[in-house]
């Protein structure tokens, strides 16, 4: 049996390591995505002061600290049995929109997008942000840099710091929004709406306008019918900050809809020896290994998961684009590469929603904190850019942390990512023929998820270039590819 090791994967926020096993005919037998590290937040957060949790847990991930900040404080709201005033909730949601603007922009232009914009077969040294600038032009680059920064700016205004914000306190938020800052956010958000429209146009022109790419999106190697999960509002529209968790089955039918506090009834985590990350699955179906379809408990989250699990978007422009996507690809969309499209629809939604919130007369209210009650147990769920994020704490009578459980966005997708890699490898590698182009296409399968393994295992992010080792059946290394 031959073994190919992809170690580690470039341009994704985190560190993964793929081993692909070939059989004697040179066909792919199986593939494993290993997560090489763990950090142990669930343990060392025990004994800390509860109110520090929103700040401690941001360090799980510097890419999506905002999502952790709010999932954490929502868990504390519940644990202290306090409902934040409506203005506080809106401010949290507004900041969360700023985070989506920055994060989805980061992924599309810097991380996953280069595969499409520059092209999957382009030389490795071109498939990055600099290659994007070359292809799309310096004016585009300036817009990209500007709007990524706008998203960060919105977070910094409300959160104090963009990376590792500090504003969340149980029962509300630390500071009211001044009228001056509100105006600034409104301007940034309006500009972001235009930017999102413009980005979707690039996507339509470069990707959807190219039948080769469209075929790639629809190809078997990138298709997987799974369950999908996302948070929805009362009308089953996508919501990033609050609502019920909805799961649809592979045919798109509602399978579950539950309150955050009931997550343990529905989600379990399976452990394997060969990786530091765990594998979440739907308890009602059970863990059936790395399989998909209605009989496997594997589900997917993140942009495509949310859109599939919803009935639409709550803002008009995003809703229009949502309809275009499903008209083009059918619903639910099982094509993994459609994550990119879904992500851009969400970018537009985040910007539109930010404008709505910035214009909301209540947003500058100074009624932003309610008094926490007696400490106990609480669960908080938000949608992080990469998927449903769950924090669950138990506090003692002095409001010190007694127990912690977290299911982090990318972790939900981990079983599916493993299968996407396996299937892409099976579809693309034949007769033992492995070259850089094929390997990049295999990598594209998981880059689509925008996986952030820093989050996935609350482990350290680290990244090195790709190393591929091919072993023959006697475990002799016969080939090494590096880039």
């Amino acid at each position, binding site marked *: 049996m031959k073994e190919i090791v992809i170690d580690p994967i470039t341009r994704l926020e985190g560190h993964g390591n793929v081993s692909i096993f070939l059989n004697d005919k040179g066909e792919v037998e199986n593939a494993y995505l290993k997560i090489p590290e*763990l950090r*142990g937040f669930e343990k060392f957060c025990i004994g800390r002061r509860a109110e*520090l949790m929103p700040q401690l847990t941001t360090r799980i991930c510097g890419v999506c600290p905002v999502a952790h900040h709010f999932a954490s404080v929502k868990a504390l709201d519940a644990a202290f049995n306090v409902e934040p005033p409506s203005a506080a909730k809106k401010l949290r949601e507004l900041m969360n929109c700023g985070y989506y603007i920055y994060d989805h922009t980061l992924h599309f232009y810097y991380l996953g997008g280069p595969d499409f914009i520059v092209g999957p077969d382009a030389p490795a040294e071109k498939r990055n942000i*600099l290659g994007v600038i070359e292809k799309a032009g310096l004016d585009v680059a300036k817009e990209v*840099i500007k709007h990524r920064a706008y998203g960060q700016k919105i977070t*910094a205004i409300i959160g104090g710091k963009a990376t590792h914000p500090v504003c969340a306190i149980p029962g509300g938020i630390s500071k009211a929004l001044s009228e001056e800052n509100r105006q600034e956010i409104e301007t940034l958000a309006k500009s972001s709406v235009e930017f999102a429209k413009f980005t979707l146009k690039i996507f339509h022109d470069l990707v959807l306008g190219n039948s080769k790419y469209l075929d790639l999106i629809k190809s078997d190697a990138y298709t997987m019918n799974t369950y999908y999960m996302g948070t929805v509002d009362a009308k089953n529209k996508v919501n990033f900050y609050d609502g019920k968790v909805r799961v649809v089955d592979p045919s798109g039918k509602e399978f579950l809809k539950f309150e955050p506090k009931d997550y343990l009834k529905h989600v379990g*985590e399976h452990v*394997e020896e060969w990786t530091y990350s*765990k594998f979440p699955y739907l308890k009602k179906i059970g863990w059936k290994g790395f399989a998909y379809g209605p009989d496997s408990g594997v589900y997917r989250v993140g942009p495509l998961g949310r859109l599939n699990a919803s009935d639409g978007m709550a803002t008009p422009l995003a809703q229009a684009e949502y309809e275009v996507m499903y008209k083009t690809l059918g619903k639910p969309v099982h094509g993994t590469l459609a994550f990119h499209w879904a992500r851009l629809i969400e970018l537009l939604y985040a910007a539109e929603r930010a404008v709505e919130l910035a214009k909301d007369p209540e947003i500058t209210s100074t009624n932003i904190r309610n008094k926490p009650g007696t400490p106990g147990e609480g669960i908080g769920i938000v949608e992080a850019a990469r998927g449903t994020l769950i924090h669950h704490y138990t506090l003692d009578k002095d409001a010190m942390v007694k127990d912690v459980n977290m299911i982090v966005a990318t972790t939900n997708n981990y079983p599916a990512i493993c299968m996407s890699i396996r299937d892409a490898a099976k579809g693309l590698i034949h007769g033992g023929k492995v070259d850089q182009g094929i390997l990049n296409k295999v990598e594209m399968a998981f880059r689509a998820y925008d996986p952030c393994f820093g989050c996935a295992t609350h482990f350290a992010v680290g990244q090195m270039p790709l190393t591929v080792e091919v072993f023959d059946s006697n475990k002799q290394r016969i080939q090494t590819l590096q880039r």
Partner: protein
Amino acid sequence: MSQKLKIAFYWAASCGGCEIAVLDINEKILDVVKIADIVFWPVAMDVKYKDVENMPDKYIDITFFNGSIRNSEQEHMAKLLRKKSKTLVAFGSCAHEGCIPGLANLNNRDEIFEQVYVKDKSNVNPKAVMPKTTTTVKEGTLKIPEFYDTVKTLGQTVDVDYYLPGCPPPVKLISNAIDAIAQGKLPPKGSVLAPLKAVCDECPRKRDNKKITKIYRVHEKAPDPDRCLMEQGIICMGFATRSGCGAQCLNVDMPCTGCGGATPNQPEVGAGMITALASILGIDKEPGQYTDEDVEKLMNQIKDPVGTFYMYSLPASILKRKVMKK
């Protein structure tokens, strides 16, 4: 400048926030590109790892290294980049002092594994399966790096030339460092590239030298927005923390938690804070002369002193580990 500088960025056990901080310099990155070639930056470029190994020693002018050291792979990269770089900068609190992920040193590996793989409420793991460095599956053998028992800072692993503090380092400090590099005006080796003053010196809040008798936690009290938080009884680490961030947490009425590391006149943030607290709580003695009773009285008021005072600096602190069981 006749020749362009060669710069590298690397992340070890990092949350990625330090990488984002580099992106947050925004347009300034164009200045960087003017004076320097980025020869290695795994997060943003497809790079050849082997090329780093093939570089002559001291080929890279400056390497910015973020994250702490938690496994064998990271240790290897720290040593490799040290060898290949003329100047090595510990970038961010993780590389500098160990940061929040360094609180893992309060527990050992077994305790962490037990919690994560067995006790966590969502686990369904009746056989208590735990990750192993080598696993045999039907197709072959799978290996993962060993999980070190202790989080180490970069300076505990290799020789470091400069430190850029903060979690993540504030944009202003990053651009100051870039300017200093561009002008060849870096301070003496070993310097921390941040102002000598404390966060209090950058904080606009009014101080009246008031003593306090009770300590409040942030959720227990909405503070007066203009007055010093410490003097309102909310523990703020601004006294003992190095400035450079513009007191940004205070901008949203939240206390400094000390991510900037210790001020130069203190051996560490924790020691500095205990002195500061003693004085504000009305123990009017010279530091070092408190009785055990004084200290105990004070500590009794503070929940989780280790997690509070050493939130960002446990691996680097004189405490090191609460317990070193293995």
